[in-house]
C-alpha cells in the first residue's frame, strides 16, 4: 500500500517535470494580444494576436505598406515617437506588459536595427557602439567599456574588419559594414530581443549574405524578429513566418509549413508572386 502511493507520487513528479520542461523549452519572448495600431483614423494594424517563441528567427513578411514596420515598432514602443500613432491591445515581453514598463527599459531589452542603415555619422566606429553603454551608465570603467565594445563588434562579425580603425568615422565603412555596426550598437546593450526592419533592403547581395549568416549565429542567444518584403529571405533565415496583409495577420507558423503547405489562399497567392 505504502509502496504504491510513493510510486504514484514519483510518476506525478516526472509528469510535472516534463510539463515545466516543455513550458520552458517553448518560452514565449513576445506576445501580442489583440493589437491595433492607428495613425490618426487610419487603422494600420488590425487585431493582431501573435506569439513569438524565444531564441528563434521570426520573420514578418508581407507586401510594402501592409504594416510590418508599424507592428515591429509597436513591440518596443518606438511607435510612440509618431505623434499621430495610437496603440490598443497588449504586448507582453516574457509575460510582462510592455505598457507597464518604462519605455526606456523596454527599448533596452528589445533592440532595433533599421532599414535605413543609420550609424551616427558624426561618431567614430568605437563611439557608435559605446554611446548607448555610456549614456545609460551600463559600464563601470573605461576598461569594461572597451571590453564590451569589442565583445559587441565580435558578436556582429565586424571586429576583424575594424579593430585597427576604431576611431574612423562610421560613415567611412561600406554599407554592409555600417549595418553590422548598427547590429553591434544594438547588441552592446545586451538585449533579449532584436528587431530588424528589412535590414538588407539597401545592401548588395554579398553584404546581404553576411548579415543573413550573422542572423543565423545570433539566434542561439537572441530572439530575432525580422521584417522582410522578400519571401525568399524569410525562407532562408526564419524558423517561423507570419504573413501580414493589409494590417491583418493572415497566417503564422513554422517556415516549412507556411512555404510548403499554406493554409490560406492569400498566403499562397503572395508566395507565388500573385499579390504584392
Amino acid at each position: 500500500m505504502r509502496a504504491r502511493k510513493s510510486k504514484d507520487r514519483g510518476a506525478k513528479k516526472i509528469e510535472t517535470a516534463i510539463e515545466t520542461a516543455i513550458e520552458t523549452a517553448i518560452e514565449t519572448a513576445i506576445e501580442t494580444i489583440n493589437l491595433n495600431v492607428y495613425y490618426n483614423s487610419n487603422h494600420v494594424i488590425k487585431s493582431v494576436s501573435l506569439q513569438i517563441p524565444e531564441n528563434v528567427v521570426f520573420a514578418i513578411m508581407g507586401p510594402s505598406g501592409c504594416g510590418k514596420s508599424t507592428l515591429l515598432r509597436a513591440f518596443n514602443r518606438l511607435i510612440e515617437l509618431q505623434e499621430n500613432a495610437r496603440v490598443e491591445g497588449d504586448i507582453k515581453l516574457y509575460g510582462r506588459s510592455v505598457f507597464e514598463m518604462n519605455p526606456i527599459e523596454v527599448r533596452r531589452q528589445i533592440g532595433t536595427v533599421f532599414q535605413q542603415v543609420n550609424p551616427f555619422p558624426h561618431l567614430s566606429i568605437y563611439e557608435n557602439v559605446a554611446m548607448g553603454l555610456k549614456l545609460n551608465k551600463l559600464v563601470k570603467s573605461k576598461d569594461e567599456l572597451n571590453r564590451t565594445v569589442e565583445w559587441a563588434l565580435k558578436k556582429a562579425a565586424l571586429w576583424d574588419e575594424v579593430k585597427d580603425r576604431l576611431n574612423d568615422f562610421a560613415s567611412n565603412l561600406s554599407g554592409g559594414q555600417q549595418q553590422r555596426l548598427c547590429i553591434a550598437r544594438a547588441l552592446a546593450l545586451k538585449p533579449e530581443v532584436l528587431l530588424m526592419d528589412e535590414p538588407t533592403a539597401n545592401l548588395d547581395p554579398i553584404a546581404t549574405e553576411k548579415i543573413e549568416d550573422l542572423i543565423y549565429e545570433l539566434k542561439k542567444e537572441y530572439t530575432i524578429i525580422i521584417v522582410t518584403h522578400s519571401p525568399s529571405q524569410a525562407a532562408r533565415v526564419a524558423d517561423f513566418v507570419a504573413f501580414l496583409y493589409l494590417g491583418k495577420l493572415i497566417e503564422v507558423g513554422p517556415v516549412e509549413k507556411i512555404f510548403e503547405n499554406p493554409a490560406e489562399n492569400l498566403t499562397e497567392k503572395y508566395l507565388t508572386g500573385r499579390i504584392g
Partner: protein
Amino acid sequence: MNRLVKEKVFLISITVLSLLAILPLFHILFSVTVNGLPVLVKGGFGFLTGTLASPGDGLGGIGVAIVGTFVLVFLSSLIGLPIAVVAGIYAAEYPNSAIGRLTKTLLQIMLEFPTILVGLFVMQIIVVPMGNYSALAGALALAIVMMPYVAVSTEEAMKEIPFTYREAAFSLGLTRFKVVFRVLMGMARKGVLTGILIGMAKVAGETAPLLFSAGGASRVYFMGIDKPIGAIPLLIYNLVQQPYKNYHQIAWGAAFVLMLIFLAIFIPIRLKIKEVKI
C-alpha cells in the same frame, strides 16, 4: 546661329549683373583696405594696443576699443548663447506646442527688430536704474541681437537631422533629454557652431545697440563690467563725427581692423560649411 547669339547675350548679361551685385562688397573691401591698411602699417603694433591720440596728435592706438569689443562679444556670448541654443532646440523639438510656436514667432520678430530699439530697451531696464553706461548693459544689448541668429540656425540644424537617427537614438533606451542633447545636438554641431560664429561676427560689428548702453571708452582698457566700455564700431562712429584729420585716419585704421576680425570669424565658417555631410 541666332540661338547661339541669344545664348551669348544672356550669359554676358547675367555675368555683368552678378558682378554689379557684388561690386559694393568689393568696393567696401577695397576702400577700407586702401585707406585703413596704411594707417595700421604706419601706426604699427602700437595702433592695436595703445590708447586714443589727442586731436591733431598722431595715430595713437585703438587698443581700448579692441579690448572692449572682445569683452563685449565674450560677455554677450556668455549671456546669449546658452539661452539661444536651448530656445532653438525647444522650437525644433516642440514645433506644435504653444511655447514652441511662441518661441518661433518671437525669434522671427527679434531677427527683424531695429537694433537701436534694443539699445533703448536695455537703457531703460539697466542703464537708467544703474545710473551709468556699462559693459553689462552693452553685452545684454548685443546678446539680444545675437540670440535670434543662433537660435534660428540651431533650430534649422536640428530639424535637418533625418528622423532615422532620432529613432536610432531612442532605440538605445535613452531619455528624450539624452537623445536631444547628447546625440542629436552633436550631430547638428556644425550647424549650431556656424550660427554661433555668425552671431558673434554680427555683434562684433554692431554700433546701434551700444549707443545707449555701453557708453564707450577710449583711454582706459577695462574698468569693470558695471562701468562704461569701448567697442570698435562705436569708436569709428564717434571719430568720423569729429573735425580732426587724424581721427578720420584712426577711424579708417579701426575699420580695417574690424574687417579683419570679421573675416577671421567668417572665413572659417565658409570653409567649415563645405565639409558638412551626413
